[in-house]
C-alpha cells in the first residue's frame, strides 16, 4: 500500500541488496520478470513484506550482448522457476542457478521468443486492416 517504491541498482549489487531487503523483512519473493528495451534488458524483482504489508520493486539493467546476472535462488527457492522462465523467453543467463533449463517451451526450441528481434517463419503476421 502507499506510494510505489522502485529501487534501481547496478548489476553487481543485486545479490547484496536483495539480501539486505530480505533481512529488513521483505521475505516474500512475489515475482520477477524482464523487459526488452532494445539495447538493454531490464529485470524487475518484486519483493513483499508480509508484516508491514508493503512491497518494493528492484530494477536492474543488463546489456543485451552480455545478458548475465546473479541468480537469487540462494535467497529464495521460489526464484528457481521464475528465473527459468526468464531464461526460456529472454535468454538471460542466471549465474549460480542450480538447473537452468527451458521451462515453458520444448527442449528443442531455438531462440528466445519474447526478445524483440526474434524471428520465426511459423509466425503469421497480422494483416494491416486499419
Amino acid at each position, binding site marked *: 500500500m502507499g506510494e510505489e517504491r522502485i529501487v534501481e541498482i547496478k548489476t553487481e549489487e543485486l545479490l547484496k541488496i536483495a539480501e539486505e531487503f530480505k533481512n529488513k523483512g521483505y521475505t516474500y519473493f512475489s515475482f520477477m520478470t524482464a523487459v526488452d528495451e532494445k539495447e538493454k534488458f531490464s529485470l524487475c524483482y518484486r519483493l513483499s513484506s508480509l508484516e508491514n504489508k508493503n512491497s518494493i520493486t528492484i530494477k536492474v539493467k543488463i546489456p543485451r550482448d552480455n545478458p548475465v546476472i546473479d541468480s537469487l535462488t540462494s535467497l529464495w527457492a521460489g526464484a528457481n522457476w521464475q528465473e527459468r522462465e526468464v531464461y526460456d523467453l529472454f535468454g538471460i543467463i542466471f549465474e549460480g542457478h542450480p538447473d537452468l533449463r527451458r521451462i515453458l*517451451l*520444448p527442449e528443442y526450441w531455438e531462440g528466445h521468443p519474447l526478445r524483440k528481434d526474434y524471428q520465426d517463419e511459423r509466425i*503469421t503476421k*497480422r494483416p494491416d486492416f486499419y
Partner: protein
Amino acid sequence: MDIELPNNIILTKLEPFFRWALSHSIYMFPFGTACCGMELIAVNAARYDLMRFGVIPRSTPRQADLMTVAGTITEKMAPLVKRLYEQMATPKYVIAIGSCAISGGPYHYDTYSVVKGVDKIIQVDVYIPGCPPRPEAIIHGFMELQEKVRKGK
C-alpha cells in the same frame, strides 16, 4: 420375401446396423486444453447432459471412438495429441471444438507457440466454430457426427 414377420422383428444389413449402433454409443475421449474444455464439461453436466445422445466419456484413448480436441494446441502439446490419436482403435473420429482447434483462433496471428489448427496434425471430422461454442452448438456438432457415422465415412 413374402413371409409375414411379427412387427417386433426388423430386417437390416449388418454393416448399417453396426454403424447405427456405434452412432448411438460413441465413447468419447475428452481432450480439453483450454477454455473450450470447460464448455465441454458443461455439455457433459446435468443441464445439457450429452449422455442422452449416447456419448460416454472414457479417460483413455484405447477405449474411445471419438477424440474431442477442445482448446488451444501448442507446439509442445502437438506430439502428444498425435500420439493419443494414434492410440485409438479404428473406427476413430475427431471433433475440433472452438476456433483454436480449427485454426489457432485468437492466436493465429503473431504467435510463435500455437499450432494453427489441429487438422495440421490429425484429420478432423467435424468442426464446431465459436470462441467458445455454446453447449447447444457442441451438441449440434455431435449430432452431425452421429449423422456422419450412420452414413459411413
